[in-house]
């Protein structure tokens, strides 16, 4: 719902930082308007109407007033506070990692309902402890896909021939893999990707191309999950041009 002065939308709380003495600058990921920075006035006061609503990872319904420079929060009602995630350090570290990825990959005020739904599903999976590791990988691939930076996993990036079933070296700088015939010794940023991981990524890519819903219909063993996590972390850091700050804590508690 939009008027000239206010708008109402569903949102997830991605980040917050101090703004003056008692205000907070909240990074909201809204369903309708994308990522929006919003000032929550007096949110640091114990009797503030916003203090519990603006906690990290909360799913909220917000009413936002348009400002000259920054918008401000008028109302904030909690839809889901994901207490299950917040009462477990391992789950919390994963939720915050997903949240930080969105902060880094999504531009301000650019609506992206697919990524919003993907993050919401990821948080629901964490809350229900439903295939946690697979959900994390699924979310990261969704984010990469809907940010327009999904690499090529099926064919050689140079000659377009199908890649053989074997371990390969992935090059983030070219967004794919060179087959054995096209290997370029000048490329230096290669990352080894195991045959099983590549098989899974090809499966996902085919699903995307055929516009099918690509929920996990494959069982992935623990080693492949570990390799996929390692690969995705390297690729996401390369694409975002920075290391995610929350990875240190993620590794510490998992």
């Amino acid at each position, binding site marked *: 719902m939009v008027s000239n002065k206010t708008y109402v939308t569903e949102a997830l709380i991605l980040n917050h930082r101090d703004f003056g*003495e008692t205000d907070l600058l909240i990074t909201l990921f809204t369903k309708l308007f994308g990522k929006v920075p919003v000032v929550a006035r007096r949110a640091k006061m114990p009797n503030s*109407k916003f203090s519990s609503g603006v906690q990290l990872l909360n799913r909220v319904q917000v009413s936002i007033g348009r400002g000259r420079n920054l918008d401000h929060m008028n109302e904030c009602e*909690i839809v889901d506070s994901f207490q299950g995630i917040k009462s477990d350090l391992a789950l919390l570290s994963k939720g*915050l990692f997903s949240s*930080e990825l969105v902060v880094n990959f999504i531009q301000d005020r650019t609506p992206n309902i697919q990524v919003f739904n993907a993050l919401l599903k990821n948080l629901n999976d964490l809350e229900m402890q439903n295939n946690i590791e697979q959900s994390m990988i699924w979310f990261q691939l969704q984010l990469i896909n809907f940010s327009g930076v999904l690499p090529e996993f099926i064919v050689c990036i140079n000659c377009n021939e199908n890649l053989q079933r074997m371990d390969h070296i992935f090059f983030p700088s070219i967004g794919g893999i060179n087959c054995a015939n096209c290997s370029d010794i000048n490329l230096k940023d290669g990352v080894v990707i195991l045959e099983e991981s590549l098989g899974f990524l090809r499966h996902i890519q085919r699903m995307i191309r055929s516009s099918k819903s690509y929920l996990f219909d494959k069982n992935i063993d623990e080693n492949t999950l570990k390799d996929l996590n390692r690969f995705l972390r390297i690729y996401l850091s390369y694409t975002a041009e920075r290391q995610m700050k*929350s990875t240190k*804590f*993620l590794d510490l508690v998992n």
Partner: protein
Amino acid sequence: MDYSGATPQVQRLIDEFGRLPGIGPKSAQRLAYYLIKMPEEISLNLAESILSVKNSIVLCSICFHITDTDPCNLCSNSYRDQTTICVVQQPLDLIALEKSGSYKGKYHVLHGAISPINGIGPDNLKIKELFLRLKNEDIDEVILATNLDVEGEATAMYINNLLASTGIKITIPARGLSVGGDLQYADEATLGRAIQGRQGI
């Protein structure tokens, strides 16, 4: 920022006031001109007290509270309960608890909270120092009085997980409704906590 009409010295004073938390350009200007009008003696006292605070203040080597004597008055007071440590995030939290007058034990100031999204982990806080204290002192109870936000609760959870095997009693301050608050205006998270933590009267 440009404040037309101010001399370079006055402008410098305005800029310095402007660095303080909660002080905007207008307030900085007002404070600077107020100071100029003040008698010289009061201005000198203010300047001296700022300098003396900066020169004499250190962190207590035991609890890491801000103090002018090491150890601080709270740590060296033998009348306080020596078997309880209250862990707080900031020196201001300690002062707020002291003002309440309801706690008579020892403190430990962490100087922050775990905030993964801002890259602040346990190594950036005084958590190692807390464990060193628990090893060397005879402590029966640790009160984890961190803030009630995600970062504060994550910090409390992290310390609680590490302390679980030590046999030390770990407690947190009660969560729930604020004194003088109407029930109908409390949000669902606060009410939920209050109902979970209900007690007999």
